[in-house]
């Protein structure tokens, strides 16, 4: 990439703040939206931070484009990424997309990336979170890579870039039975970011204020009617647990009684 300038895309998602509790609508169709606070997904924040750090450490990064697929309100996640240091934002508008429709989101995002590439150069590096805290399936990243016919490295916890070659540590075991592997990836490629990669910054107020003024490029794309995700029938709160059985006595008695209960009653040993 000596002659070409590097372009990085980061894909983010606007999700309910996972630190607060949620309620399900009476008909089980979705979460009760009242009082629900949305944020930029914490895993995607790691991806934004990684992109910003790459730009700071190299002279050849042309720009960081942050993208999202979602409702009008999802622009807030884009503004958060802009405040963190992304250069410009692209919003693929989709009002009726549901949190679990990750393959649909990947297809829309791929279509947007193709359209952007038609008028400029494509992206050399695409980053996103390994999963999002709303749906938790982590389908989006690998699905987007497949849509774009790009290689990907999943769940990265370390990354070093050398020209257009990346060496990454992935929390995806090789067949040999390890739990982490080191991969070499030739760019262009997509990578999904795992916790531990980098600590995302908290953007300062002036940066947040400035991001509010920045323009966002909105795109409306047509999609095929073909179903690519499962259909939600109903959302329910998790089943209630029986109350805890407290074990009395001194440490030895508790240990003995616990082992007995685990063996005989719970059959967990």
């Amino acid at each position: 990439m000596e002659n070409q300038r590097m372009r990085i895309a980061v894909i983010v998602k606007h999700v309910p703040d996972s630190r607060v509790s949620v309620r399900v609508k009476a008909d089980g169709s979705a979460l009760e939206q009242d009082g629900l606070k949305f944020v930029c997904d914490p895993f995607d924040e790691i991806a934004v931070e990684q992109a910003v750090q790459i730009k700071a450490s190299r002279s050849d990064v042309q720009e960081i484009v942050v993208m999202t697929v979602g409702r009008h309100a999802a622009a807030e996640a884009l503004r958060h990424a802009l405040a963190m240091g992304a250069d410009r934002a692209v919003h693929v508008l989709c009002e009726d997309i549901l949190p679990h429709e990750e393959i649909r989101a990947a297809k829309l995002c791929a279509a947007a990336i193709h359209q952007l590439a038609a008028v400029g150069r494509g992206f050399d590096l695409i980053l996103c979170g390994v999963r999002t805290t709303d749906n938790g399936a982590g389908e989006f990243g690998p699905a987007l890579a497949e849509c774009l016919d790009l290689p990907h490295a999943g769940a990265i916890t370390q990354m070093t870039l050398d020209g257009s070659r990346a060496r990454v540590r992935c929390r995806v075991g090789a067949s040999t039975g390890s739990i982490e592997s080191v991969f070499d990836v030739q760019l262009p490629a997509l990578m999904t970011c795992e916790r531990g990669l980098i600590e995302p910054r908290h953007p300062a107020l002036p940066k947040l204020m400035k991001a509010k003024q920045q323009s966002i490029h909105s795109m409306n794309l047509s999609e095929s009617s073909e179903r690519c995700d499962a259909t939600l029938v109903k959302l329910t709160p998790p089943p209630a647990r029986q109350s805890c059985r407290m074990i009395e006595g001194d440490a030895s008695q508790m240990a003995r009684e616990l082992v007995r209960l685990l063996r005989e009653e719970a059959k967990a040993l």
Partner: protein
Amino acid sequence: MSAILVYLEKRGDAINRASLELASLARTLSQAFGMPIHAVVIGSGVAAGAAKAAAAVGASKVFIGDAAHLADYRPRLYRRALEAAVASSGAGIVLMASTAMSRDMAPRLAVRLGAVLATDCSEVFVEQGELRVRRQQYSGKCVGLFTLPSSGVRVVTVRPNTYSIVEAGIATSIVESVPLDVAADQPTDARVVAVDNASANSESAAPQDVTEADIIVAGGRSLKSAENFAILEALAAALGGAVGATRAAVDAGYQPHARQIGLTGKTVAPRLYIACGVHGAIQHLAGMRSSRVIVAINTNKDAPIFEVATYGCVGDLFEIVPRLTQELGGGGG
């Protein structure tokens, strides 16, 4: 007639236990939809044990991608091998254990096949003639019931420890072996350059990913140091389980990120979860509340961990845990 294709994930020299757990589910779906069960194995040197592993999940046919270039997992290469297996098998339903590898690969496979994907399901069943799944959303704060289409290819990944291994009883006559021809990789695929077995203590104790462990002994910041986790290691060893940690313990540097359980760590559902000195922050509960049996050991009787626990001990973990290890016949204590 379309088939049910079970992906038997190779793990070290054996087939991952979590893949073998799919046997009873495969049989249920096979009976409900009248589809035969097939299996697929990918790796290097996997041909020898393939038929036996396939028989364990009740398969009548096993597709074998066995080549030196398939030794290590590479996303596009493995996706291509599975794609070939789906085509040869005529599979309508692909079942995989929800492991780090399948989470990485299944979305690529689904896009490639134009299939519908359901990831990390905690329940898979047939209702009103439809294939339905339950899976957690919002970090376990909700459970979603989903339906999959009745035609086309459906890829379902199942959370480990959801079904018990069927020890015997599936009568399989003869497993037909079908070799898969998987071309060597495109140069642009991610290539494994090193493998990290950092958490492997010895040959016999294979590194266990907490998401696949049957039994987890977890510790919080009240362990006070990395060294003190040794008492949890001893208990885990006595139980044949893995050690996990809360975010607070990981942030304090007591344990590596890979062992973190909770919202920003891993989500687990083992048969037995022993929480030692774990307060039970909502973020931690999100990652372990669907464990079958939860034991809480904590000095604070009002700690929220007791709200999700099956059995509770109010007391000092430094006194109780070593005695527990001793009681189980392990060393120490």
